[in-house]
């Protein structure tokens, strides 16, 4: 059982790392600000989400697990807001800001 959980953790966390990598590559390679923003949000949502998912089986208590989920939810909220705000700013002032 523990082995299965470990394997699950490893798989989820590795997938999370992949999305962080993808987010970075997108940030560096995509042609314009709005599409770079697009890449970025994937890292926020999926990257951290998968890592939290992978860490859940290892949480010491239910409260700790809830805390992990809450952190992810907050980052989701922050990421979505930041993406909206930056996107609007870029559209309003042009990509040079």
């Amino acid at each position, binding site marked *: 059982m523990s082995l299965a959980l470990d394997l699950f953790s490893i798989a989820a*966390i590795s997938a999370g790392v992949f999305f962080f990598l993808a987010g970075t590559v997108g940030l*560096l390679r995509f042609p314009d600000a709005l599409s770079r*923003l697009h890449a970025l949000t994937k890292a*926020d949502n999926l990257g951290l989400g998968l*890592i939290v998912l992978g860490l859940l089986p290892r949480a010491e208590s239910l409260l700790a697990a809830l*805390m992990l989920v809450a*952190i992810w939810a907050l980052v989701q909220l922050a990421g979505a807001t930041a993406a909206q705000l*930056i996107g609007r*700013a870029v559209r309003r002032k042009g*990509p040079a800001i």
Partner: protein
Amino acid sequence: MSDFLLATAGAILFTVAVGLVRILGGPGDADRMMAAQLIGTGGIASLLLIAAATGARGVDDVALGLAILAAFASAAFVNSGAPAEEPDPNPADDR
């Protein structure tokens, strides 16, 4: 297992930081802001991984604090980008 967690923490940090180093020249402030946002998320991820691996106490509060403040820099950035100095000549036109 904790070695794996630590290695991933390092990998994430390294990945997102490369983004910042690469983006030194911009092109625009918005890109720099995005890089900072990405590092913020990456930092929280590695913090959680490090905490799980080393069992340090009280780290979840730090992660919680960082998560709450994650959008602050971006909010300030946008807020300062729309200052009162130059009122929009055509307020209806948000496009």
